[in-house]
């Protein structure tokens, strides 16, 4: 167990260091973008020099960038994700309101994409003819090549506008005040198209990687050996091939999970889904530095955790892989 503990510590330290570098990089890049939150707040209709000066002073934006940086990093280590100038609230309070909708969307989408992609690959490998593989492959190439926002728009056009099967946007039907079970159903109804879009976009990668992995595994020496010994094909497939083939897609799934905070930004915009994607985009356009950095920070943590977890899960499945 101490080996594991050492591994874990090493990974965590490494992750912390990485996060620190990333945050520093992000900080300076964001601050070098033209415009600042205060100037944008005053807008273009009635801009006022007085407003700008007063607010800048209030938020400490008139101090040199490096001083701001030091202040920010110190706060970060105290667990303070910063303060949004635009909304006059702590970044965390803004983020936590939007995290849930995004996570529901991206986690459902990714999990479904993973399951369907992997199962399709396994299923196709069972078929006698090449036909199934070709059809599914071509479909997956096309889906992979489709811009996510374009697919979302087409979904709305077909399923909302023409067929009226699903609502266009938002999370709930605001006209009715459902409670309990009905509310959940309504929510799922609104969730369907965005999740479907996300799933279709992500599925191809899982399919292809799993398929390639299965094919490659078949060429491995151990397969020849086991077949020679007389292990039945079915058992060979289930016990060995599948277990080994699942590792590459799992790795990718881990990375995808890591990005689940902002992974669906374009889809959120098309479907007016009140998640992190829109928050982030607005933060960029309004130069809400601290909010933006807060989001990046959360994402960096997410990714690090996701990667470590993935490594652990994979090691669990296949003890051959050493945790170096």
């Amino acid at each position, binding site marked *: 167990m101490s080996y594991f503990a050492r591994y874990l510590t090493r990974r965590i330290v490494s992750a912390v260091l990485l996060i620190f570098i990333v945050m520093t990089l992000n900080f300076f890049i964001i601050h070098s973008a033209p415009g600042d939150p205060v100037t944008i707040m005053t807008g273009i209709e009635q801009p006022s020099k007085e407003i700008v000066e007063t607010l800048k002073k209030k938020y400490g934006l008139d101090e040199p960038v490096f001083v701001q940086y030091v202040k920010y990093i110190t706060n970060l280590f105290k667990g303070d994700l910063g303060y949004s100038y635009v909304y006059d609230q702590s970044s965390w309070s803004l983020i936590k309101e939007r995290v849930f909708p995004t996570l529901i969307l991206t986690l459902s989408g990714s999990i479904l994409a993973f399951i369907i992609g992997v199962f399709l690959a396994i299923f196709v490998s069972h*078929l006698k003819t090449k036909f199934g593989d070709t059809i599914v492959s071509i479909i997956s190439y096309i889906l992979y*090549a489709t811009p996510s926002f374009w697919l979302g728009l087409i979904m709305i056009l077909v399923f909302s506008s023409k067929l009226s099967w699903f609502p266009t946007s938002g999370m709930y039907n605001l006209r009715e005040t459902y409670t309990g079970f009905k509310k959940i159903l309504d929510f799922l109804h609104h969730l369907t198209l965005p999740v479907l879009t996300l799933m279709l976009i992500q599925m191809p990668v899982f399919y292809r990687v799993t398929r390639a992995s299965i094919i490659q595994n078949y060429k491995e020496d151990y397969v020849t050996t086991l077949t020679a010994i007389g292990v039945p094909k079915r058992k060979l497939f289930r016990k060995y091939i599948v277990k080994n083939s699942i590792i590459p897609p799992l790795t990718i799934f881990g990375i995808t999970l890591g990005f689940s905070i902002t992974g669906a930004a374009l889809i959120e915009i098309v479907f007016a889904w009140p998640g992190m994607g829109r928050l982030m985009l607005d933060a960029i356009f309004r130069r809400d530095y601290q909010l933006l950095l807060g989001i990046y920070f959360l994402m960096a943590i997410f990714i690090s955790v996701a990667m470590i977890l993935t490594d652990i899960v994979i090691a669990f499945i296949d003890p051959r892989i050493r945790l170096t």
Partner: protein
Amino acid sequence: MRKFGDFVRRYFTNPYGVVGFAIFVTLLCFAIFAFYISPYKPNALSEDVLSPPSYKHPFGTDHLGRDIFSRVVYGTRVSLSVGFVAAGISALLGIFIGAFSGYYGGIVDEIVSKIIDSFLMIPIFFLILIIVAIFGSNLFYIMLVIGLTTWPSNARIMRAQTLSLKERGLVKIAKSIGESNIRILFSHIIPNGMYPVVANSALQMGGAILTEAALSFLGLGDPNVTSWGKMINEARTYMSFAWWTIVFPGIFTILAVVAFSFIGDGLQHTLYPKLSGVESE
């Protein structure tokens, strides 16, 4: 030279590779001969606003009366350039950084690996967004930025290749006869190890095209050029009653990215024939 001939021959046995290449060549012709193929100038305004596909306008017209077919054809130039330049920059950077880092090893390698890993943690797309906002939405900058943010995957591949090539007999011999490191890198390691990067680059070209489309969707594309992504963005308002404005640019985008994916896979299979062939039990 013989190796190259073999390579090409093997490539064309792969059906995906062939189809991908065919589509690519078609698009390339569109791009090069755009002037001769398009019936109208892409920016020519007319009074035929939002008219459906017809003999006069095979893909219909957009909200300013511009012929969509001509715009799609000219758009090929933008997409192919974005793909090539961005992926090219990414490949060059990736190859050199990966090779040098893998070869020399040591602390430089550690640092480079950390940098590669940290790139994984930055939401690349949003990084591109911010940078485009700084330098402006000029097409060249967009290509540059995409290239500068996607090299890590190439570097990783090259580095792995370098590490394995380093131990090969050829390199050891070269070292023993006193060849300088630089020579070894440039004559042995890079030329032998870069092929997977080339295959990866084909995929990256598709990715670059999609990134440009997403940037245009958010309004950050270059307003002076006709790109498919920009066409899709402008068509959103009219799509409910003028489907041709959004469908054709979308189809071509998918076509181009599919072509590059096919080519990438074709290259992959040519390089590693062990992986090719479909097996059922």
